[in-house]
């Protein structure tokens, strides 16, 4: 780990923490516009977090250290992923410390702790959300890993930086059927893992339809702020991953300050664009019945499988 690499990683972490709530705000604002509502400002999530941080800390009666630890582990695992993933630059990112597979397991770590936190206070809704969340996560994991397999085969490496570099060096490889199928698979997985429609509705107010929200029902005050921030960081990471794995142009390949500045600007623009696209998509779809979700994830699995077969037979 060299000094510029550490600086690059630090910039990425700072950027993601700063941008993540605004990205969520932007998605909510877009949705409000399209639905003809005035909607809150894009910085509203930041204001919410600030407000929550200054409220009292509450611990539910029967919960233990798992409940208290979960928000921190969720945020810590998210931030670890930010350190590993090339968002602004491929040259920093401490990329050698972990590859795409490591990212999958870090994400799963966060999910598992949230699930345990849902069970810990012993409420019916918490258990329900936990059970559903682990179902989705368990079925999303194979699709995710197979999509990674497809991407790694193309680049000859599972390292994120190398995959990004290989696309930069040979942009035509993106237009191959293998890459497009992998993109489709990854997109479905991202929607499922980050709790977006059609898998989970992030703005639902009905507990019976919730997945993510019902796990965190018992959180309040600063703990809730950490959970919210962590979920927003997760969404940002996923969108950043899609952006840079499938359209890496503009990413810095050195740690030169000018390149880093361009990289930062470009990644923010890409995130905003993807956020608007997803928000628009969400206006037009309804939430799926819970027991249709496995079918969606199976479809993603099959797409990823086809992506691998394609990249083997069509190159």
């Amino acid at each position, binding site marked *: 780990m060299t000094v510029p690499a550490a600086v690059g990683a630090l910039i990425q972490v700072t950027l993601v923490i700063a941008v993540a709530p605004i990205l969520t705000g932007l998605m909510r604002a877009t949705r409000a516009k399209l639905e003809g509502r005035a909607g809150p400002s894009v910085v509203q999530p930041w204001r919410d977090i600030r407000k929550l941080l200054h409220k009292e800390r509450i611990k539910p009666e029967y919960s233990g250290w798992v409940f208290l630890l979960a928000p921190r582990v969720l945020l810590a695992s998210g931030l670890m992923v930010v350190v590993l993933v090339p968002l602004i630059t491929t040259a920093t990112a401490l990329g050698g410390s*972990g590859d795409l597979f490591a990212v999958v397991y870090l994400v*799963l770590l966060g999910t598992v702790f949230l699930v345990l936190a849902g069970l810990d206070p012993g409420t019916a809704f918490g258990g329900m959300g936990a059970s559903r969340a682990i179902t989705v996560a368990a079925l999303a994991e194979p699709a995710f890993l197979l999509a990674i397999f497809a991407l790694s085969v193309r680049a000859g490496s599972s390292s994120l930086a190398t995959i990004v570099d290989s696309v930069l060096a040979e942009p035509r490889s993106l237009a191959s059927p293998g890459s497009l199928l992998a993109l489709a698979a990854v997109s479905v997985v991202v929607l499922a893992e980050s709790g977006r429609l059609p898998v989970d509705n992030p703005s639902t107010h009905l507990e019976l339809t919730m997945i993510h929200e019902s796990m965190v029902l018992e959180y309040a005050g*600063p703990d809730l702020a950490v959970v919210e921030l962590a979920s927003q960081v997760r969404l940002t990471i996923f969108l950043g991953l899609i952006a840079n794995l499938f359209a890496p142009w503009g990413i810095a390949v050195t740690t030169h300050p000018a390149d880093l500045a361009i990289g930062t600007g470009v990644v923010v623009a890409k995130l905003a664009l993807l956020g608007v696209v997803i928000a628009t998509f969400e206006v037009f779809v309804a939430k799926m019945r819970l027991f249709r979700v496995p079918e969606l994830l199976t479809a993603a699995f099959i797409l990823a499988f086809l992506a691998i077969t394609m990249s083997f037979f069509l190159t």
Partner: protein
Amino acid sequence: MSAGTWGLAFAAAAGGIGTIAALVTVGPTRRWLVGILSGLSAAAGGATAILVLVGHGPVTVHLPQILPLAGVELNLDALGAVFVLAVAIVALPASIYGIGYTAHGLNRRSVQAMYPLFIVSLLLVPAAASVSTLLLLWEAMALTSLVLVAAEHRDRSEVREAAWWYGSMSHLSMIAILMALVVFAGHAPGETFEALRMSGRHLSSSTRSFVFVLSLVGFGTKAGVVPLHVWLPRAHPEAPSHVSALMSGAMVNLGIYGVLRVTWDLLGGGPIWWGITVLFVGVTSALFGILHALVARDLKRLLAYSTSENMGLILVAVGAAGIYSSSGNPMLAGVAITAALLHIVNHAAFKGLLFLGAGSVVAATGTRDLDRMGGLLARMPVTGAAFAVGSLAIMALPPFNGFVSEWLLLKSLVQGLPASSVAISVTMPIAVGAVALTGGLAAAAFAKAFGTGFLARPRSPQVEAAAEVGGTMQTGMVSLAVACLGLGLAPFALLDVLRRAGAALPSLWGGEPVRSVGVTLHTGGLTGSLSPLFIGGGLILLVVLIPVVLRLLGVAGRRRVAENWGSGRSLQTARMEYTATSFAEPLQRVFDDVLRPEFDLAVTHTAESRYYVEAVRYRVGIVDGFETHVYRPLIRVAKRWGEMSRWVQNGSIHRYLAYLFVALLIVLLVSQ
């Protein structure tokens, strides 16, 4: 005598003295002596294994006087040493744990006397260097463990049934192993492994395949692979928990050892279909095992099925190694075999830990039913924390050890494609998909085990009254939890010595498959690296730093304890909680076709109106499909056969004399 020889001799002697001590002492003295001497035996075995692995050369012992005709041949090479190390990692903490655990009605002479012998046999099986020695030690291992499984046969009829299943299956497997090795030795100049190794490659291909298939069946039964796993989910739950830990963490590994030793060492590898077969056996075991673990209500049964799953994962790696080696990529094979060996050691650590944790729960509450547990983390903080570590490790989450071996396993499967043949490009994506699904379901299964067993509120009075177990039991669990964390943060030391084990399998090893540069692991083939120390350390650091940052931002540190909110629902009771069954229900529904659960839903209405429900009874039973559809019919046939043969043996002395006469006539006619 070299240091290694002394080590093995000491291990055997300590075990032997432990057995004698168990026979002649009584009460707490017996518990302590057996625990300490078995622990010493395991420690000596582990030390010998480490000596061999760091390059002291193999330990060879030749004892012609012990067995007539053949004599006992021991030769502990680096491959065997990995397995001895895995045994020692579980056996040492399990023995310490046993000191306290056996106080709960298990301090009987027969049980305590068998325990040290079981450990010695586990330590010596990987050192066996001739067919007769291997068979002798293998049988010793099977018999001692059978006695231990049956320890509580007087108290519960399930124990007797489990012991029957275990005894029958392990003897059927013994027959398969016997046939494989005897046929092999018959075609070789001698029965030592040396002789077998020299002739292994020159046998006819049909003989080689015969030996391969039979040894896969025989050793696979011991490893608990599907469909030969049926004994495992019965025997492991019914055995005393420190014995379950040894069986699940150490004994089943020796099945994998047998497959590796016979197929890829003595036979020297074979055609590609061997690898493909092993890989698909592994895939089936992994998926079937984890699905049943997911829906199991009995905590120890869940762990037992998960052992089937993990052995499956290891066989996937072994099979992949075989496929790579047959298609001329020994370096890729090396990555896969490193993944397999590392997972064996890791699995020993976390499965041992989980079984010890389950044992503490059983000792404290008297139940294994997850649906009746809950709230144990508050009542048993050390056991709960240890079980949490084991669960996270088995889910392959950083910073624990399962993460590293699962990463290597996935890496080894993915990397084949660029250098590919059709066989590889078809099997590997399937294997990755299966391994990934297994990983996801394992996360669900162990979130269930820990989440519904230890979190929330107790669902029954005996769990409500549970208290933490004693010091020796805690020591056993904590030391394994530390091992899980240590192997997760710093696997380098182990990976460096695994190189010697790989070199003992020349057909599966080439170049430098996995190297560690500083704290980062690199694999050959497809690039991509991992630094477990950085990821794990970074995670721990961030988890510690986040509250500090919050404090700096002016967030209050104290928490007020308040009633659960539960969406405004007041007066929550434990009956409203999600149980283990309900937690797994969505996934059970998704995998309906495989699990084929049997439901029974009875709704009683109140007398006044059909629209009001008085009571709902929901019962779900999931049976192992292989048991009902394969084994039960076989048992029926065997029983009928036995009953038919009964008229042959009716106790009449005249008839027996007639048999003798006829047999003599036949012999005379044939020998003419």
